[in-house]
């Protein structure tokens, strides 16, 4: 178990290293002088030379990449030369907002998805089951940024039930939760569909297994079998899928943060891209790839805990 997890951890670390290094290399090697892009055409030769020196642009690419990782290991994400602050400052400020948004989306979509999936499986082939099935596909099909725009239009602009912009007053928890509702709804909606379908499928599988048949032979009431014995097992695949799905949620969060003008990693990376602030872009990439890999690791770990066969499998 420990060895298996150590292997996965080493693999994730090497993926992180290669993925971020490759991006760094592309950024440095692509034609075009980053100093003139950053400082504008009117920058003097001296300003450019100074900036190139600060960024270490004169070193060979390999050295630059190794220096970059050397700084990361020491907990330094680099220097935001454009605004003269450490990159970690805006990144650490933004991260909790994005994490809260993703957590809100996961909580509401998992709750509703599991409920719908379990009810569908229990009422298999009824009208309820069919309607839920079609609704699930419709939810999955709705791109999250269209949902974000439409819910902004309907609930914030036309009905004025929810605020249109911002993340709420800092320190005021009810206000912050209030601001979380629409964006959380937007990026969670398709996951309701996913989870409902996964839970329904695995419920049906579990229900045909021996221990469930034994339970009903013992005269345990049907609702108890479905909602306690079967559901407890059937939820597990959904948990795993959600762990890997965080990558997709990160992409959706970019749109939700822009549409609802919320602070967060997505908004930060978007603003850094528009101002060509490469160090911050790299910092955000590193953090998002690391976040995604951590979530897949957690999913792997849960998977291995539940299914011992997976430990020896590649």
């Amino acid at each position, binding site marked *: 178990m420990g060895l298996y997890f150590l292997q996965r951890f080493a693999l994730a670390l090497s*993926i992180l290293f*290669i993925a971020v290094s490759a991006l760094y290399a592309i950024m440095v090697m692509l034609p*075009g002088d980053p100093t003139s892009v950053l400082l504008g055409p009117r920058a003097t030769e001296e300003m450019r030379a100074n900036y190139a020196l600060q960024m270490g642009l004169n070193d060979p690419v390999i050295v630059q990449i190794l220096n970059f990782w050397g700084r990361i290991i020491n907990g330094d994400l680099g220097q935001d030369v454009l605004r003269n602050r450490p990159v970690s400052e805006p990144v650490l400020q933004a991260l909790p907002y994005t994490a809260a948004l993703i957590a809100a989306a996961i909580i509401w979509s998992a709750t509703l998805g599991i409920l719908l999936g379990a009810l569908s499986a229990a009422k298999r082939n009824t009208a309820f089951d069919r309607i839920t099935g079609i609704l699930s596909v419709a939810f999955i099909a*709705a*791109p999250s940024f269209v949902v974000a725009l439409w819910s902004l239009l309907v609930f914030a602009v036309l009905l004025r039930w929810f605020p249109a912009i911002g993340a709420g007053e800092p320190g005021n928890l009810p206000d912050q939760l209030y601001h979380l509702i629409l964006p959380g709804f937007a990026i969670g909606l398709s996951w309701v569909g996913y989870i409902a379908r996964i839970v329904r499928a695995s419920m049906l599988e579990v229900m045909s297994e021996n221990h469930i048949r034994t339970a009903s032979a013992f005269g345990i009431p049907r609702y108890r079998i479905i909602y306690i014995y079967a559901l407890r097992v059937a939820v597990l695949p959904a948990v795993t899928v959600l762990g890997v799905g965080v990558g997709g949620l990160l992409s959706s969060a970019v*749109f939700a943060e*822009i549409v609802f003008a919320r602070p967060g990693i997505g908004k930060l990376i978007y603003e850094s891209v*528009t101002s060509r602030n490469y160090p911050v872009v790299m910092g955000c990439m590193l953090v998002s*790839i690391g976040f*995604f890999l951590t979530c897949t690791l957690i999913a792997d770990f849960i998977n291995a805990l539940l299914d011992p066969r997976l430990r020896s499998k590649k």
Partner: protein
Amino acid sequence: MSFRYTLAGRLLRDPLAVLGLSIIVLLVLSALFADHLSPHAYAELNIANRFASPSLEHWLGTDNLGRDTLSRVLQGGRIALLVGILSVVIAGGIGLLLGTLAGFGPRWLDNTILFLFDTMRAYPTIILALALATLMPRGLSTVIIVVVLTSFSEYGRVARTQTQSLREHEFIAAERALGASSIRIILRHILPNILGPFFILVAINLPVVITIEAGMSFLGVGVPPGTPSWGSTLKDGFDHIRTTPWLILGGGIPLILVTIGFTFLGEALRDVLDPKLRGER
């Protein structure tokens, strides 16, 4: 011949597949004949008549420059399909090649390619798109490169798994005993057997690709300014959300329809071609 007949026959018996197919056919036709169907030229400006609500003259109203929204949405379908088909073909080709190589080749090659797939999957699509957009010129080719980079590994994975399970079969061993080369085995026996699951993935992946294009154009890192795309219509609508709701509706509806169409088709294909895969994802 008879297999094809059964495939089509079984697909057409599924009402959701028929619905999906009809949406796709409508989309393709409207994209092909966009020039004839558009009531106005898509770039025709009419500043005096900006933000018009839907009328007989402008079925979906007009945008912030007085351009006809319906005409732009029809033209946007072309961009969506062009990007979708090109990137799926390129990504599918690369994935197929790498996947069969990994599944058929020696262990070290398999491990290397698998590592590449894992690495590519680690990039969150839209965030990678934004990062690359700082480095590449704005345009369709950048959109296609980004989409190919983020999606080829998925095709590769499917091709690899299929190849691996096929190479253990007896008919492959028999073919090898008869002196067939690896290339012949891959082309004549492995490839045709991979294509089923592969097309399911294409149908499921196409709307994802189209959504990425719209998303990139929405963020201003997709199609060049002025080009009609569903994403840029949505962006115009977002910028003027308090003035008119029609742009957001007009840009969003086709995007949702396309996704529903291809999702229904993909699911029906999966049920018909590969019942084993049912319930996955």
